[in-house]
């Protein structure tokens, strides 16, 4: 279980770093909305201009909500690992946690992929369709991770049933 403890430390660290983004993200968005010239923010390599300020701020808010969803997923993962550490494995709470982690990651992926697509059409008059797989932060990877957690939840549900059967075999 040494690996589990290492993983717990890493996830706790990731959660802490993610929380910094959650705490400072909203003031940043407000700053961009109030003084876009002083805070030069970029979306897709382009500076946020006065012309599309409202749309850009709305996009920032949506991306921020996606980020919050991701942080919530990491928080649930932290809780799940704490349960594993307490030797609570095939439990209903863990099945629910795995399912919720998966859903929160999928929400994150959707919020990070869909609104920027429409933003580019509206603000940049550019239609961009393609598979953007640039590392582990890409929406595609996060969606895959979310689905993996949901599958894992179903596997745990099956395992719980099998464990109950084994416990009631005399």
């Amino acid at each position, binding site marked *: 279980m040494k690996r589990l403890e290492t993983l717990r430390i890493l996830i706790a660290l990731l959660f802490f770093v993610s929380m910094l983004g959650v705490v400072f993200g909203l003031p940043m968005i407000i700053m961009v909305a109030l003084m876009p010239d002083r805070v030069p923010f970029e979306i897709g390599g382009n500076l946020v201009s006065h012309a599309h300020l409202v749309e850009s701020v709305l996009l920032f808010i949506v991306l921020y909500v996606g980020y919050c969803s991701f942080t919530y997923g990491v928080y649930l993962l932290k809780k799940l690992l704490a349960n594993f550490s307490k030797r609570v494995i095939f439990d209903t709470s863990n099945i629910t946690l795995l399912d919720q982690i998966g859903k929160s990651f999928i929400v994150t992926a959707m919020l990070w992929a869909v609104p920027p697509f429409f933003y580019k059409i509206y603000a940049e008059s550019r239609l961009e369709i393609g598979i953007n797989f640039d590392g582990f932060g890409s929406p595609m990877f996060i969606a895959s991770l979310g689905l993996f957690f949901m599958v894992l939840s179903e596997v745990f549900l099956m395992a719980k049933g099998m464990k109950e059967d084994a416990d009631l075999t*005399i």
Partner: protein
Amino acid sequence: MPIIINLDVMLARRKMRSNELAEKVGITTANLSILKTGKAKAIRFSTLEAICEVLDCQPGDIMGYVEHSKNE
């Protein structure tokens, strides 16, 4: 479940107590209680063999099939 356990009847006939049977069979009294109350989902052949050996009976003596009524 349509399979019923008649272990209590056999124990009464043999004038044996549950904990004595559990000890001779090599299972815990908690597990024997699960078996007696019909909460068990399965029984190992080795356990069944041991119970039959201790109680000197056939598997059919300690369990039976009861047809489900359509209302259930």
